[in-house]
């Protein structure tokens, strides 16, 4: 596999981009302003697009240039724009109800990264792969997954929940690029398209929520129980 034998420059570039993406996930976890989430998500998508292009270059996968271009276009421009449109319709600019303080959620996020690192090291050891890039990719993939779930559970605003799901998917996408760059192009394209449709659906639902419940905070969603 590609990630197991890389030249040092490529390895350090990949690592840098993966770690920067993880840091941006922490920016989202640490901020309460909805617009910050959106910007951090857009930046993360740009980094992942850049990563795809670099992997395409170093691994000789031509089709990854397309993936990179479409990632930047869809995840880096169209999705943030869609989310910005939803944001403009909302009356809230930030999370009002917090379950945990920002610092506590950052600490939990850090614990999640350590857990992900342990799991990633175990897997790499089982596979007999010594490459740090593989361990790093697994760590970032799992920890973005955990941080996404953390955002989904700790945040109430509809927009934060959408972004939580997008972070989950970004984590998988980043891991996929490094671990299985040969994944058929069609699958990746359809996944990108699927994400776009999903966010459009979310947008429609958010406006329905506003119209019929008068709020986009899941705090208000407590009629159905038992």
């Amino acid at each position, binding site marked *: *596999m*590609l990630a197991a034998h890389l030249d040092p420059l490529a390895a350090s570039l990949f690592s840098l981009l993966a770690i920067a993406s993880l840091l941006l996930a922490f920016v989202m976890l640490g901020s309460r302003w909805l617009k910050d989430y959106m910007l951090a998500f857009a930046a993360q998508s740009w980094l992942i697009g850049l990563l795809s292009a670099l992997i395409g270059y170093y691994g000789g996968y031509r089709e990854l240039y397309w993936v990179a271009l479409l990632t930047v276009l869809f995840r880096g421009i169209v999705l943030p724009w869609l989310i910005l449109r939803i944001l403009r319709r909302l009356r809230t600019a930030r999370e009002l109800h917090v379950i945990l303080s920002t610092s506590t959620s950052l600490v939990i996020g850090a614990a999640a990264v350590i857990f992900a690192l342990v799991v990633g090291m*175990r*897997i790499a050891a*089982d*596979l007999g792969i010594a490459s740090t890039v593989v361990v790093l990719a697994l760590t970032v*993939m799992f920890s973005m*997954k955990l941080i*996404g*779930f953390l955002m*989904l559970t700790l945040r109430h605003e*509809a927009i934060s*929940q959408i972004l*939580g*799901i997008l972070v*989950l*998917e970004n984590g*998988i996408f980043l*891991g*996929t690029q490094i*671990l*299985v*760059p*040969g*994944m*058929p192009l069609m*699958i990746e394209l*359809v*996944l990108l398209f*699927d994400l776009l*449709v*999903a966010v459009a*659906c*979310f947008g*429609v*639902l958010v406006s*329905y*929520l506003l119209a*019929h*419940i008068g709020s986009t905070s*899941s705090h208000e*969603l407590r*009629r*159905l129980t*038992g």
Partner: protein
Amino acid sequence: MSLGLRVLILLLAPLLVVVLGLAVRRPRFSEYLNLAASVATLLIAAPLPFAAGLPATLLGGYLIVDPLGAWVAMCVAVVYLLSSIYAIGYMRRDVHRQTQLPLFYALLAGFALTMLAAPLVNSIGVYWIAIELTTLVSTFLVGFERNAESMEAAWKYIIVVSSGISLALLGTTLLYWGGTFVYGETYRLTWASLVQAAPHMPPVLLKLGFLLTLIGYGTKVGLAPMHTWLPDAHSEGPAPVSAMLSGALLNTAMLGIVRFLAATDAAGQGALPHTALVVLGVLSLLVGALFIVRQTQIKRLMAYSSVEHMGVLALGFGFGGPLGVAGALYHMINHSLAKPLLFFGAGNAMHRYGSKRIADMRGVWRVFPVSGALWLCGAVAITGAPPFGLFLSEFTVLRAGWATPYLWAAIVMLVLLIVIFVGFLNHFRVMYLAAPARAPANHLADESVRWHAAWRVLPMALPLVPLLLLGLWWPASWTALFRIIASALGAGP
């Protein structure tokens, strides 16, 4: 007719409803077009599992028709037809929203299309996308009534299921990665290539990939403790949609779990996956039993019954072996026949009494004797009482469990099924026999005009015939089919 043509009609019929219905935009036209499409779908899908020359791949290997997938597609088509009949009576009642009917039927047919396609796709990645699409389409059906409750249900549904199913995507990625150790960097991950590669994959990736897909698709199946979206979505959508969600959708997601299970079995790593599936099955039965006994709302009662029956399916496949697989498959079709009947009865009762609460529904015998009698038969059937099909299938699953190391699970299943039997039918006893607190008579006068009784009673009577038949007689050709499926899954002799 060649297999390719049949599959083409199967997928084109609902697609036609989406396109033509939205182009013409006439309520009656959409209604009948959808009905015709659902009849065509069932006519094609019902004999499909028994077709000669299966498994066959179509469209350059992108579609696969194997007995297992065709079986699930058949269950989808059964529920689609029943829901299409019932929807005509149910949706006509609300005279103010007739202009939205073309949209409703387009969504319903689109939902059916995604559910018919999912069992037939031959790529694990595309299967994931098909399942995700079922969510996106059905969200708008769940929220179709556009009130606060249904919007809440739709939001919870899309968020919980999308985040859950992203775990299945992670699992799929790990399995693809495992496959690269066998096939090299780029290959097509089909169901067959997964099973072939599984024995040579690093076990850690195979097991982790399976567990992640189990949790991911298990969210969609509604296995406890990932079932939280299910009672909300099933209770707040229109009754025909609830029937589609419960009778059809849950099976299509279960199919994915079963196919991944076959891969771990092929690799000889089946112990952990089977245990995980059995544990989730027992948990689902437990959650179903607890919430059924103390339920206050009629459609949530039916929804928890779905959690219970998905638990039975999980146990059947988890126990494994030819008997477990046969019991689970038999249970799948029985559940698909019985559950629409119950949701339709609940829909009728909700309209008649103008309430969702069981406590408001009293004296059902007197208020609507005919559909009330059918509803009661359905309730007896769904709790697994003889002489209906669910008794046979639950008994078969139980027998399969008896011979495995999961004897404890079979015993717990038996106890919980009895608890559910008593708890479920107790609600019906009160609804039918207790004296009405207040007469719903004032409703009836103007309702009788818009009642559309035939459309609402026929789809309740239709499934009772096969349910009774399947309870008395297990078709020999089905036994042969189940044996083929079980050996294809690596569970057969």
